[in-house]
């Protein structure tokens, strides 16, 4: 008798013989208990990954994940699915490489097909100065043991002969490629972590919006939700996009603004982009999904927003970038565009730290880079919740780094969140 809650060729065959009657939902519809050791607020990729690693690696299973909507309804299902670890600064590189390594083993670890595809992320450069900057970035990556390769013009031409190399203003001169980077099916990440956590005993409580925190003598006692009070020894906030709203309920003001980032998908067409390509002269990144749709995006809109939709000027800007880089997409029809909420922090880097309230922990400020960070953010937040000290690769992501002057500012833009 094969266990059909473990996915394999044998469970598929066994279910074929019994008429597909033995499949079970990937996670239970849990009702809230009166209390847990740890309550994680936010059932997105990060919150679910945190619960999974807490149960799997830190031996805590009396955990609830409370989610306002349904699993997969937030930013984990609204991004452009790109994963990479091509960062420059010491505070970021080891963290994102930890994430990359977890992506590489994710499907075996979760027993779930997340369609991890290391198809390569190619950043194009268009000037000598930009090449120098990419050489520096590539060297920083290689010093940390991460793959990075500088491609000259001919090497890029061999990969993508149809790019517009002779653009009058921004001719392509070459690129920096991380071959281990690529894409991952975003919904499957949420579903896989949810199923993995559920199988280890974690309660995933959907349609439970947090409406307040119960704090007694400076210590967290639990969360008030639309499905009643849930007691907790420790509470972890993992609600990027809405961090400030939740933090305000606990009396905290964060170094974060919420902004909107738009993404786009075209109608399905035959395969022609087998990797991720980014335009270095504007801001445009593109890949092609397995269904054939072109998935692409650009800059954030640049003003505070909780609307989950953006405005036309940025759409025009993104599409102009696309046309400058690859004129052949000009007649492809746009299928959908949408917006997601970004926790834009004051230095463009995330926060995984304790808060001034005992027992209340914070994971947020992910800007537009939260998806690729999902496994490592979950691991590091789980470490912090279990051990009360930061994980080795997330030591720089302190909440008080703005006060002490230890910012991690990849773009060097200062305290202007809309410019990161």
């Amino acid at each position, binding site marked *: 008798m094969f266990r059909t809650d473990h996915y394999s060729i044998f469970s598929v065959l066994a279910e074929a013989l019994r008429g597909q009657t033995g499949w079970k939902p990937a996670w239970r519809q849990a009702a809230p208990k009166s209390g847990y050791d740890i309550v994680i607020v936010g059932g997105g990729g990060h919150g679910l990954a945190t619960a999974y690693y807490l149960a799997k690696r830190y031996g805590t299973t009396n955990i609830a994940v409370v989610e306002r909507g349904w699993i997969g309804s937030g930013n984990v299902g609204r991004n452009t699915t790109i994963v990479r670890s091509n960062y420059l600064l010491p505070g970021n590189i080891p963290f994102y490489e930890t994430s990359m390594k977890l992506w590489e083993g994710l499907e075996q670890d979760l027993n779930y097909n997340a369609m991890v595809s290391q198809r390569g992320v190619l950043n194009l450069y268009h000037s000598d100065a930009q090449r120098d900057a990419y050489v520096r970035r590539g060297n920083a990556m290689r010093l940390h043991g991460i793959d990075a390769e500088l491609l000259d013009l001919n090497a890029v031409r061999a990969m993508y002969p149809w790019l517009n190399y002779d653009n009058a203003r921004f001719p392509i001169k070459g690129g920096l490629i991380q071959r281990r980077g690529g894409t991952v099916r975003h919904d499957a990440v949420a579903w896989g972590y949810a199923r993995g956590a559920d199988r280890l005993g974690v309660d995933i409580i959907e349609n439970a919006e947090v409406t307040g925190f119960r704090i007694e003598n400076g210590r967290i006692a639990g969360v008030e939700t639309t499905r009643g009070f849930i007691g907790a020894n420790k509470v972890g906030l993992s609600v990027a996009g809405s961090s*400030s*709203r939740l933090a*305000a309920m606990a009396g905290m*003001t*964060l*170094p*974060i*603004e*919420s902004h909107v980032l738009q993404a786009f998908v075209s109608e399905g067409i035959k395969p022609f982009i087998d990797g991720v390509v980014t335009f270095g002269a504007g801001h445009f990144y593109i890949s092609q999904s397995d269904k054939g749709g072109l998935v692409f995006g650009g800059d954030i809109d*640049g*003003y*505070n*927003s*909780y*609307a989950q939709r953006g*405005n*036309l*000027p940025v759409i*025009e800007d993104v599409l102009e970038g696309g046309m400058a880089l690859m004129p052949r997409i000009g007649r492809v029809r746009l299928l959908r565009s949408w917006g997601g909420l970004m926790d834009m922090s*004051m230095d463009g880097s995330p926060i995984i730290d304790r808060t001034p309230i005992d027992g209340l922990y914070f994971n947020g400020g992910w800007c537009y880079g939260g998806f690729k960070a999902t496994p490592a953010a979950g691991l590091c937040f789980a470490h912090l919740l279990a051990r009360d000290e930061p994980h080795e690769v997330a030591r720089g992501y302190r909440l008080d780094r*703005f*006060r002490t002057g230890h910012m991690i500012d990849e773009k060097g833009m200062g*305290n*202007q*969140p*809309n410019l990161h």
Partner: protein
Amino acid sequence: MRINCPFCGERGNDEFSYLGDASVVRPDPASPSAADEFYAFAYERRNVAGPMQELWYHTAGCHAWLVVTRDTRTHEIFEVKAAQDVAFGRQKTADTTP
């Protein structure tokens, strides 16, 4: 999203640059808690979900700084004022406060 500039009339939002929350005011450097106040001034934001006063600059127009009252949940704009009028208004209120 279109912003009704008091000097130029209604224009698309791509003519404007965004600075951020207009309720953030530079603290008094002589204040005994100046270090904390400057930290909050530079880094902490209320990040309002709802009507918010914010500073926009009419880059491709009259180069005026504007205070725009806009709902961050819907992008609806309720009021646009010249920033200098708002600043002078604040000054007046401060002067008459005992």
